[in-house]
């Protein structure tokens, strides 16, 4: 697999360990550098620490909700240009609108097709 020094950094914010494992395997296999945050607090901490190229954000996560994580990132001049992809099992329009208002670039409904998700990621990084 590709192993260049300019590997793109993906921050995966997700509290379901099996989804984390499957997603990071698929992303790593395609040459991304994956960092995991299992709750909202950790996510914000890692954003400033590793400065990811893109964030995959579950919305229903412990401590700080995905919506609030996104709002915080988008309110910060240093991080607001980082693309945020909401990845959620919530499929109602009202929830999608809420996420878009919080500033996410895309909304992917679970279960997603891995190939479709990868395509969206490639669109941004």
């Amino acid at each position, binding site marked *: 697999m590709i192993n260049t020094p300019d590997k793109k950094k993906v921050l995966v914010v997700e509290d*379901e360990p*099996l*989804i984390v494992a*499957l*997603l990071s*395997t*698929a992303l790593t*296999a395609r040459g991304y550098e994956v960092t995991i945050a299992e709750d909202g607090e950790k996510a914000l901490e890692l954003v400033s620490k590793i400065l990811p190229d893109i964030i995959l954000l579950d919305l*229903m996560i412990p401590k700080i909700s995905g919506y609030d994580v996104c709002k915080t990132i988008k309110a910060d001049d240093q991080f607001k240009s980082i693309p945020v992809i909401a990845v959620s*099992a*919530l*499929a*109602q329009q009202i929830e999608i609108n809420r996420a878009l208002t919080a500033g996410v670039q895309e909304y992917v*409904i*679970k*279960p*997603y*097709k*891995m*190939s479709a998700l990868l395509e969206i990621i490639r669109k941004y990084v």
Partner: protein
Amino acid sequence: MAKEKVLVIEDDVNVSDFCFDALTGEGYEVEVVSSGENGLALLQDKPYNLALVDLHLPGGMDGIQILKEIRIKFPHTAVIIFSGVGKIEIAVESMRLGAYDYITKPFSVDELRFVVDRCLEQQRLHTEVGGLRNIKNLYKVSIMMSSLMEVEKVLDMILKLAGDMVHADSGSLMMVNEKTGELTIGVSMGMSRYIAKNVHLHSGDRIAGWVAKTGEALLLTDRPDTLPQFKDIETNPKIKSSIVIPLKSKDKIIGVLNINNTGSTYTFTQQDFELLKELAVDAAVAIENAKVYERLKEIDTLKTQFISMVSHELRTPLTIILSSVENLDDGIFGELNLEQHRWIKEIGTSANRLNTLISDILDLSKLESGQTVLKKESIKLSDLIQKNVAQLSQLAKKRGLTLKFTPCPKCITILADPKKIEQVLVNLIDNALKFTPAGGSVEVTMKPGEKDEIIVTVADTGIGIKSEYLEVIFNRFQQLKQSDTPEGNPQGVGLGLAIAKEIVTQHGGRIWAESEPGKGSRFIFALPIEEQRND
């Protein structure tokens, strides 16, 4: 029409005889008494339309006192005063107290007839207007019985109508708690809020409790403690008269209607009592219906929340299954042999079907509960169909089918929700592709209908549907058994058609199917053109 009754209260025999002759000649039923006490006694016995009252009478009561008494106790009897010369001030005072008119003695036959006729004519009109208003109010309650309203709103309307019908100035509607049997005030008017909030009566307590317990309606025109069952209770001395009626639904008492007169001089009549008893029958039905409606709304909300929650919970494990399948299929966990490949694909297909089903259930439940608001806009239907046919043609090719679309020469814009109409199209085309054997074709056409509508047809050369199933296939989870179809192996349960039907119906359109076994099926929907043609 029965003769109108006139009571003459006059001690001067010359005058009373004169009146008797003049008015009897006019067709009225006339009775004469010489004192106020006798006059009131007669009024107590039967209703009179009019009383002619002399100002000066022997005995304890003068004309003004009699007038006051009649206005309070017999409000439906009009009063005309006879006054002597030089008593103009008293005559004017009597008008202020509610007399219809006064005549100065001596008077002629014509004068008397003129005043009496005019008075009774006005009374007739007044009665008719009152009757019409009561019919209107009863009608309003019967409308309420079948309309969808919250309980509190229904209670409020009933109390207002009841009060309006009998000119009451205060009252309340008390409801029986189904579990404890206690009475509490649901809505009130003209009462202290503190009392309205804090009254709790047990069955049998006070007047309302007695009515709730016995199921008997009461007309109280005297102090309640004159009745043996209420002799020990303290009542509000301000209340001059009241009507208390139980609200019954299927022999069960669900509430009590209390209607009072406090400040006013009006006393409720037997007619008021009958009217409110009539109203109470419909009111009870309206309240029960409103309760059922509220409960249904509650259940509906719970159902929607439940479905939303369940679909979220189901999507998480599905994500794990489908991601595993994709990773395995991509060889990320090592190479698979052919057999493993095949079964991994099957797991993926089934999991995807489950996923579609979850989305469909959620969609349908939102459509059916009215939570889906159509976002209508002006759309070119042919463009929308073209786009979807193009997207599905890949799938058709894979199955060895041809899919084509013949647009209508006149391109018509309609007012519709494009996403929802797209869902209808995809469901119909997808079904057609599914039930048509390789080598066949699916064709989408559109044309203007007879009325202001546009008709879209999805025709296939598939296995067809027996006529007895053409309607039921639009029901939820209706799948044709293999034996019901001429040949082939139908798969995938239909929530798709139920969703399509719901969407089309909500657009004010129609959807149906036509088929002859062996010759394929046609699924047709018609949408109303809500906008001008746009050529």
